[in-house]
């Protein structure tokens, strides 16, 4: 009974984070339209911001109590939903389909390299030494 109640609260936290993440991603995509020959700045931006935040929250909340709701809300909810893998693949497909193979190669390489670096930067940001005051 206790476990079920906790699980429902955790699912609700993930749901709430998902609502916010989806609205932010779709809102930015609507504000930054692009064709198959252009750089998908909307997707690129949410994926990089999400990777940075997830790295930070992962490091920050590593030792969180098991019943913490902040962790699932921020990580699986907001960061997981703000970022997207399927849209990235569709954009690559549309670039290749329109003959922009070089753009597709640049887009995937930049996304992977920067995404990886942003995760690490988020973790490093959390572990930076406290400034002595």
């Amino acid at each position, binding site marked *: 009974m206790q476990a079920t109640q906790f699980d429902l609260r955790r699912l609700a936290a993930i749901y709430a984070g998902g609502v916010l993440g989806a609205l932010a991603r779709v809102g930015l995509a609507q504000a930054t339209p692009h064709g198959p020959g252009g750089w998908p700045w909307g997707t690129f931006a949410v994926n990089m911001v999400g990777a940075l935040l*997830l790295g930070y929250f992962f490091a920050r909340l590593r030792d969180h109590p098991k019943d913490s709701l902040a962790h699932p809300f921020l990580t699986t909810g907001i960061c997981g939903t703000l*970022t*997207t893998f*399927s849209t990235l693949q569709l954009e690559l497909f549309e670039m290749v389909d329109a003959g922009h193979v070089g753009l597709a190669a640049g887009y995937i390489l930049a996304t992977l390299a920067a995404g990886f670096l942003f995760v690490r930067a988020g973790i490093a940001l959390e572990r930076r030494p406290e400034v002595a005051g």
Partner: protein
Amino acid sequence: MSAVGWVAVGLLGGAAATARFLIDAAFAARVDHPFPLGVLAINLAGTLALGLVAGVALSGEALVIVAGGAIGSFTTFSTWMLDSHRLADAGHSHLVWLNLGLSLIVGFAAIVLGHWLGSVL
């Protein structure tokens, strides 16, 4: 987009995030291996679905709601990157390349297959 459209994006985004969590947890409970199989399965399934939606030429607000609200929310880039970092950190460098390579190559095949299926439906 209409107010109803935005509400639909939010509600479906929450549902997709919850589904992603439950599916990943189900994989984690059954597979005792550091490789993030759950997220890989989620990302590939979502990519196939997005190809299908693009192939059937859904457009306008319906496309934004289904593609952006539901499928885009279901799949995840940040978890894929964090999992890859954790594998690298734990010394499983071959699993990092497997995670990146499988996602990219099978993901692209999934979008092509989905698009083709959608266009012949």
